[in-house]
Every structure is written in C-alpha cells, then in structure tokens.
C-alpha cells in the first residue's frame, strides 16, 4: 500500500484531535483529543521510520507512548480533583487563572 495514505490518515487524525481540543468543553473529551493528536504523531513517526528504513521513528513512538501514559496519570488526577471541587468537568468553568 502507498505509505502516503498513512500520512494522510495521520494528518486527518491530528486535525480531528486539534479541532476537538479547541471546540469541546468537557475536560475528558479534550483529554482524549490530545491523546488522538499524540497517536496521530506516532503514526507519522512509524510511517517515516518505515519509509526511511531505520528504527529512529519507532523508538520515538515508544517514547511518546511513555510520556502520554505519564501525562494521562497527571492529567486525570487534575481533572478528578477539579471535578470534586467544582462538580463540573467543563474546561470553561476552570477560568480562575486570569487578571
């Protein structure tokens, strides 16, 4: 199969993820969209790795997964604690950090 198709898919997923982050209010959904963007990148890395015939991209994909897992731990913890104090998972409600 033409490797470009993987890249098209990766761009499509990244765009969906980015649009989700910008548009959706629910913190969980925003979070999942971030994951979607990360995985779109992973797909691009792996594709390029395949194209160039070396393992660099695949190694970076593993790193990305590890970072994403760590990020999920921290992010979910923040979301849960915000939900506990505000009874809402909307990112627009957590807007205290402003002048």
């Amino acid at each position, binding site marked *: 199969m033409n490797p470009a198709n993987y890249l098209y898919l990766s761009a499509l997923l990244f765009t969906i993820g*980015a649009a989700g*982050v*910008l*548009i959706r209010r629910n913190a969980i959904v925003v979070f999942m969209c971030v994951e979607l963007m990360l995985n779109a990148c992973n797909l691009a890395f792996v594709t390029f790795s395949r194209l160039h015939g070396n393992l660099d991209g695949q190694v970076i994909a593993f790193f990305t997964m590890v970072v994403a897992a760590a990020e999920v731990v921290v992010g979910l913890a923040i979301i849960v604690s915000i939900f506990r104090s505000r009874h809402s998972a909307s*990112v*627009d409600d957590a*807007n*205290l*950090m402003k*002048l």
Partner: protein
Amino acid sequence: METLIGLLVAAPLLGAGVLLTGGRRLDRTGHLLGTLLSLLSFVFGAVLFVNMLGKDADQRALHSHLFTWVPVDGFQAQVGFQLDQLSMTFVLLITGVGTLIHVYSIGYMAHDERRRRFFGYLNLFLAAMLLLVLADNYFLLYAGWEGVGLASYLLIGFWQHKPSAATAAKKAFIVNRVGDIGLSVAIMLMFTTFGSFAFADVLPKAQDASATQHATVTGIGFMLLLAACGKSAQVPLQSWLGDAMEGPTPVSALIHAATMVTAGVYLITRSGAIFNAAPDAQTAVVTVGAVTLLFGAIVGCAKDDIKKALAGSTMSQIGYMIMAAGLGPIGYVFAIMHLVTHGFFKAGLFLGAGSVMHGMNDEVDMRRYGGLRKYMPITFITFGLGYLAIIGFPGLSGFFSKDKIIEAAYAKGGTEGWILGSAALLGAAITAFYMTRVMLMTFFGEKRWQPDAEGHEPHPHESPSSMTIPMIILAFGSVFAGALFSLNSRFVHWLEPVTGHSEGDSPVSAGTVTAATMVCLVIGVGIAWLMYGRRSVPAVAPRGSLLTRAARRDLLQDDFNHVVLVRGGEHLTRTLVYLDHSLVDGVVNGTAASVGGLSGRLRKLQNGYVRSYAVSMLGGTAVLVAATLLMRAV
C-alpha cells in the same frame, strides 16, 4: 634660608590652628600669641629681606620645594615656594601692616568676648595671603586665594549676631566665587595649553606662544582679569566691598591695605608675561581699572558713613593699580609701588577711622562728628598725614606713586593714553575732594554729635596706646615711603628683574603731569572746602542731586545686580521649573502612561479560558512551521 620661607607661612597658620582649637583657656593670652606669631612672621620676612639685599639683583630669587601635593600622571601639583623681589615686597607689606593691625586690635577688640577667635581668623588671613604671594605655581596660589576668601568671610561676618554683618559676609563670599571661577578656568586653560601651571613653565611659554595659542592666551588673560575683579573689588564685581564694612574696623584695614584686595593686583603683575602677550586682555584691564577708579571715587564722595567713604576710596585706588598693571612693563612697578604706599596710608586711615569710632560709641555717620581734632590729637595728626598722602600732597607717599601712574598712563601713547591719563587726573581731583570732605566733616567745624538712642552722650577721647602706636608707625610710612622708594628710582631697580620695566615715551613731560596733578589737587580740595569747610555741615543729609543720590546707593550697583542677576535668575529658574514640569515630566509621564495603556490592552488576552490559550499555541505553531517551510523553500 629656604626653610624660612616655609616658616613664614607656618607661623600664622600655627597661630590660627592653636587659637581656633585651643578653647577658652586661651582667652586671656590668645591675642598676645596671635600678635607674637604675626610678628615672628614679619621677623622671618625681614631676615629674608636683608639676606636678599646682600645678593646680586639676578640671584635674589629663592626657591623652596616642599612636597608634591597631587601626584597624578601628567598633573603634578607641587607645594613649592618662590621668593623673589615681588613676593618679598608683598611679604613685608602683609606681615608688617598685618602685625600693626594685630597690635591695634588688642586695644580695639579688648571688650569683645570672642577676641581669641578674632585673632585666630586674623592669623588665618595672614597665612592664606602669604601662601598666595609665595606660591610658585597657580594651583597653590589658588589654595591661598580661596583661603583669603574664607578668612574674609569669617572676619566680615565676625559680628554674626547682626543680620547685616552675616549678609555682608555672604555677599562678599558669593561675589568672590564669581571671580574664583575665572581663576579656576584660567588654570585649566593653562594646563591644557602649556601642560603645567608652574610660573616657571607657563610664563615663558605664554611669552613665546605660537599664533594658534594666541587666542587661548588672551582667554587666560580675560579669566585672570575676572579673578582679579572679584578679589580686588573692580567693576563689575565691586558690590561686596562697601558692605564688607560691617566687619570690625581692623578687618577693613587688613582687607583694604595689606591683604585681599591687593591679591588681584598681585595676580595681574605676576602674570605679566601673559598680559604682555595678549594686548586685548591688557586693554580690558586698563578699561576696568580706569572705570573703577572713577566709580569708586564718585561713590566715596557721597557716603556719610566714614568707613564706606574710605571703602569707595580703596576701590578707586585699587583701580589706579589695576590700570597701571594693565599698561604693561611701563606700569607694573608703579602699580606695586602705589600698592605699598597705599598699604601704609589706607591702613592708617582705617585705623584712624576705627579710633574715631572707638571714641564716639561706634557712631559711623560723619554728620554726627565734627570738631574732633581737639579731642583726639594723635588720631587727628596720623589721620591727617594719611589724608595728605592719599590726595598726593607733594613730598608724601601718595604723591610719588600716583604721579608715576598718571605719567605711565599718558606714556601708553595714542588716544588710549590721553583717555587713561585724563581719567587718572580726574580721579586725582575727585580723590582730593572726597578725602578733604571726610577730613573736614570729621575733625573740623563745630561738634554735631548727639546722645544715642539710649541717651548716652558720647565723650570723644583719645584711644589707648596699643591703638595709637600702630597709627603713628603707619603715619611715618605714609610720609616717607614714597620718597624712600623714588630716590634714585630705587623701587624700579628693585622690582625690574621680576616684572620688567621700560620707560614709556610720554607725549607730555613729567613736569607737566605733576603740575596738572597739583592743579587737580587744589581744585578738589578747594571745592570740598567751599562745600564743607566754609559752610556748616547739616546733621541730616540733604536730598542732593540725582548723581549724589545714585552715588549714595553705590551708583545703583546693587539695584543693577538685583534687576539683572537676581530677577533674571528668578525668571530663569521659573522657566526651567516650567520646562521641567511640562517637557521633562511630560515625556516621562507620557511614556509611563502609554506603556500602562498598552499593557492594559494586552492583559485582555489572558482570559483564563484554556481553549483560547490552545488556539494561540496552535496558531503560533502553525506560524512557526509555515516560517520554517518558507525558509527551507527559499
């Protein structure tokens, strides 16, 4: 011998240090210590003088280098003394007349509880003045110059409990500062042009200055003239001299005869080489001298305060000296000769005036004197001899020295010579007038004194011998000094190796000048006798003509200063304050306000919504990526 030069300055300086820090325990003996140290300084001076006379004329200059004061690369300020004939003349005048004034002050200040301090200041004055005339470079001279300014401030304001005295002291100090600016600028110019400020370097270099340096040398000349104007009370910096009469009378005698006002004449004579190389500056000097000699004489005519009349006279006589010094080599010697004879008779006149005031409950208004010759015979005779000397009575000191200056003025040649000579002759006539007026109002006529505000009738009496003896000695000087100096042109030969001397080519013969001077003298005395001798003097001053009223107000010099300098200064500061508020503050505050406004708008971007931050991150990333791609493409 070289060590003695240092001791000459050290003796009065030690006196000042001991008297001013010694405290109360010196109250009983302090005045004796001060007088003794001043006398010691005079003795050192006399020893050096005798030693100097024993040498050949061109070997007489002594030099004593003590230490390097400010050793910086290229800038070497030395503390070194130079004693040549010119300095020697001043040393003898300063310490001699100074010592007599010390002795006089013992009697005059006997009842003042701050007498010890007074003698400390007198010693400081002598030390500063000796430093000034003994310095071998302009930098050290400047130190002495400032010391003289300080000491005069302390002494003029000695009776500081009187607001008028405190103000007069401040005025003298501030007006002198203006002159000091001239001296400091002159020293800086010397340093940049000639790389040194020692007399031995600057003066020969100024003499053969290249064409490019010529303008600078003229500038130095003008700045030195400004300095001399400040210290010697010449127009336009003369306003402090009259007010300086607020100080005790011995101080006036010291300032007017031996120290302070003579410093300007010394500076110009010492810097003769600079002025010889700068004819424009010389013209300015003679102009200042001629204007001041008439200015002071006119002021002296109108004053009823005996000390202020004498102050006007000093201004006028110093004008003669400055004019003579501006004439170049034909005048330097005569400027110094008149300075020395003037030192004798003016000190005598001031001490006489102090003696009169002492006997008259400190009354200074001559309209309240009259007929005092019966009550104060010694004061009358000594004052009278000083009077005859200053008007130039034939045979007395002033006759020889003033006559020579008038001759030299004519010898300047051309229209300039005629103008200067005529101004000097006119000055001689006015001098005869105002001094006769002082004499007649004080010692002749009927008595006009009245009880003072507290009802004390003055009992005029002769002063104690500590006051009369100095007056007698000074009277001897007033009578004989001129003849002694003029015999065989002795004074000319004495000073010639230092200042140089050339006989001018006078269009009028010496005999004619002397005759003209005598005519002027007789006219001046005659008019004064008609006005004040034949008629009785009213106890209240008549209104007088416009000129008289202007002269009573010092020819409006204070009014001029007030309108031009004080008001002008106020307007200038107001304008500057306005500019500061509107322009400088406007720029500063405007910058602050615009930065504040801009940041207020930028603040709106931080709205707390995560999604809007995400948009800016995405947008930023997109821009970065686009830019990178674009750069790649290019």
